């Protein structure tokens, strides 16, 4: 039994459209890998349009670290390479075969391998990009040694996939994945589990890792919060983190020798007719998933959850790190005197609306900002939902003024954009905090390295 660390600050956002715990299969014709998903990586293509690839064939590598390769999730033909401004590579589209053929990387037991051998295999088979690091929230630098590796065993974001459901019958792959990850550090591997209710045995019985419980509201499941409360990152230190589905991916690589990019995703949101779980692959096109399964009207499709996810179109693909697709209504009308009306259908962390009367009510929120951009005025607002020993507004102001020394002093190494998502949600001034933090991290990364 590990430590239990109560997270007191935060906010659970209850939304309509949670996925039912029913698993269906989803097969798509096309799959897209988007280099911009791998923030910070500079993609260098390894395939051309028309090339035949197998599942596990590298599509591009990162110019910063040439060993880091991103592989194709399916076998098929590279249909097109979509480029944006300055010929930036946006997407690599693959037309999938009916039957997936895999590259064979050879099965092996990670416990019999050295750390370097594990690392080499993961780099070779395209499993490395799923190991990410703090500071900077980018793909882990394979040349460094992390002081610890963290895995958050639950996602407390609204409408997020329930990893208890995803993992409940995958004890073997998960454990082998953990065994492999353990080889990558001399320090500990920490597994953070939900403290409010009982997690699946697969997580509870995981061996070789330190298990800690985090009762409390969102963002208790954010890995950054867990790192901060167990082993905070100081300047010069590096911590790696892996998401549970990526542990499975790594586990399957060692178990079968294949790059198996299977993802179990939650299709959720108030506009989905039958919200449920689907077994699909990274990069799957969602069109066949949502067509006929969503309500009428102008909709926002999100790869990921509504707080941190990425906006995509209906004919677009699942992001590399995401475990859910969320569909919520776009805002379509302006509200007459909306700033003074009771707004029973709106959720607010303050008590200026009536959502405090109904703490268990589920809301169907649209994408409205519910206001306009303003300067910082309210104080103490972020602190209520930000469980770090960091002064968020001071850190943000240091980012705005591009003062790197101040950013370091105020704790930029410990945070990632997602840690500010709740602050962004509650912000009265409607500031784009996640974007600001991302820019701050990029600046420090460039200057400090």
């Amino acid at each position, binding site marked *: 039994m590990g430590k239990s660390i109560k997270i007191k600050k935060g906010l659970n956002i209850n939304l309509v459209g949670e996925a039912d715990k029913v698993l269906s299969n989803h097969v798509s014709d096309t799959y897209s890998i988007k280099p911009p998903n791998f923030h910070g990586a500079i993609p260098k293509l390894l395939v051309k349009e028309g090339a035949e690839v197998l599942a596990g064939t590298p599509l591009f590598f990162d110019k910063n670290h040439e060993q880091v390769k991103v592989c194709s999730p399916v076998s098929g033909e590279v249909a097109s390479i979509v480029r944006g401004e300055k010929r930036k590579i946006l997407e690599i589209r693959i037309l999938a075969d009916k039957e997936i053929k895999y590259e064979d990387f050879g099965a092996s037991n990670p416990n019999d391998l050295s750390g370097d051998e594990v690392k080499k295999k993961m780099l070779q088979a395209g499993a490395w990009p799923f190991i990410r690091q703090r500071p900077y929230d980018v793909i882990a630098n394979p040349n460094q040694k992390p002081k610890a590796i963290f895995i958050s065993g639950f996602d407390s974001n609204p409408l997020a996939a329930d990893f208890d459901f995803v993992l409940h019958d995958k004890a073997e792959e998960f454990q082998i994945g953990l065994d492999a990850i353990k080889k990558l550090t001399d320090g500990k591997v920490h597994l953070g589990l939900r403290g409010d209710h009982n997690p699946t045995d697969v997580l509870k019985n995981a061996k070789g890792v330190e298990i800690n419980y985090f009762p409390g509201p969102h963002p208790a499941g954010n890995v950054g919060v867990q790192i901060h409360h167990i082993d905070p990152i100081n300047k010069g230190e590096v911590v790696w983190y892996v998401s549970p589905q990526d542990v499975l991916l790594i586990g399957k690589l060692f178990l079968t020798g294949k790059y198996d990019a299977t993802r179990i995703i939650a299709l959720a949101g108030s506009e989905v007719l039958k919200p449920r779980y689907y077994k699909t692959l990274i990069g799957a096109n969602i069109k066949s998933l949502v067509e006929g399964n969503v309500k009428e009207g102008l909709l926002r499709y999100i790869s990921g959850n509504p707080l941190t996810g990425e*906006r995509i179109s209906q004919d677009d693909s699942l992001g590399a790190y995401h475990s859910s697709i969320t569909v919520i209504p776009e805002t379509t009308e302006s509200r007459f005197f909306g700033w003074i009306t009771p707004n029973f259908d709106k959720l607010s962390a303050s008590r*200026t609306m009536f959502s405090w009367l109904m703490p268990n009510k589920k809301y169907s929120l649209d994408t409205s900002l519910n*206001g306009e951009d303003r300067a910082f*005025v309210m104080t103490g607002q972020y602190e209520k939902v930000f469980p770090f020993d960091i002064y968020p507004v001071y850190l943000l102001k240091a980012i705005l003024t591009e003062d790197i020394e101040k950013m370091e002093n105020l*704790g930029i190494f410990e945070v990632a954009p997602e840690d500010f998502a709740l602050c962004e949600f509650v912000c009265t001034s409607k500031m784009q905090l996640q*974007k600001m933090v991302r820019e701050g991290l990029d600046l420090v990364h460039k200057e400090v390295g």
Partner: protein
Amino acid sequence: MKFLRDYLDSIKPNFEKGGKLEKLHSVFDGLETFLFVPRHGAQSGAHIRDGIDMKRAMFTVVIAMIPAMLFGIWNTGHQHFLTLGMFAGPLDGLMDKLMFGLIKVLPLIVVSYGVGLGIEFLFAQLRGHSINEGFLVSGLLIPLCLPVEVPLWMVAVATAFAVVIGKEVFGGTGMNILNPALTARAFLFFAYPTKMSGNTVWINTSAENGQALVDGYSGETFLAQSIQSSSNYVNVAGVPYESAPDAWMNAFWGFIPGSIGETSVVAILIGAGVLLFTGIGSWRIMLSFFLGGYVMGLIFNAWGANEFMQVPAIYQTFMGGFFFGMVFMATDPVSAAQTNVGKWIYGFLAGFLGIMIRVFNPAYPEGIMMSILFMNVMAPLIDHYVVQANVNRRLKRVKVSNQ
């Protein structure tokens, strides 16, 4: 409301860049967003957002001030008729008192909002940003912290000073150092002291035909009376209160002369309840402010060198602008300390110094305005040390882990 929406949409192009009324873009935007919360969607970052916005936050404060404003309107009439020897009971002549108060107070509010919003609109247009909601609060605070007899043109000048020098030169709402409403009050206090203090400014004593001031008339506030005696108080008609506790009950309810909105502790506490319940006002500042004033009062009680010091600590807080300053002025999020620890220090010192200045300053027996303004200036310094402590904690962690 669709016709209104459609109408706004139809005239909107005139105010966009290149339209013939481009110069009025901010005004149009202000009006449009006042009527309709715009359909701006979240383009990046979190796709869903909290229902609150700045307009709602600011308007909550305005709602919180309404009890104090209504009470002030009534009390303006009440004090007026008391000096004429009429309607002595609180409920006697209720309509007369309200009407009289309304006639006196409404012009102050209109002038304050008119001048302030006019300047805000102008600056918003010149700088090309949207109109900020901060003045919705300041515009009501300014008249409520002034004596009723202040001339309208002075209110206009003070408001202009507060908005331009107190706020806009720093970059507008959110950037100012001093509380704008208190800046207006301080400006008047130093520029026109005879209209801001003394025995003649708190009550309107104009008498119509057939009316006359009562013989014992005294326009002194409780604060002024406290210099002479901490136990014998008279009301504006010169009638002594039965006992000191009776006098303090009157002060608690607010049946005493003073600035328009500041007299009734009860009305202000209702507002405090609104602010604290909605989470818009900081309970840390309010509580520590009260404790600061109370502790200073206790220290003076123990010292007891003069009559003023002997005023029981709890009653000290009922007088003057203590509660008004505590609930509406000190809690201004922009000019107050911003860290939670800083708020405790800031509030405590503001209350503590307020009572201290009040008792020590023989020229003008009210110190809350000065203490809050002083602590406004000090707030960034307090925050600096609080944040620095956090930085040091982090640096220490590095050293420990390096050993």
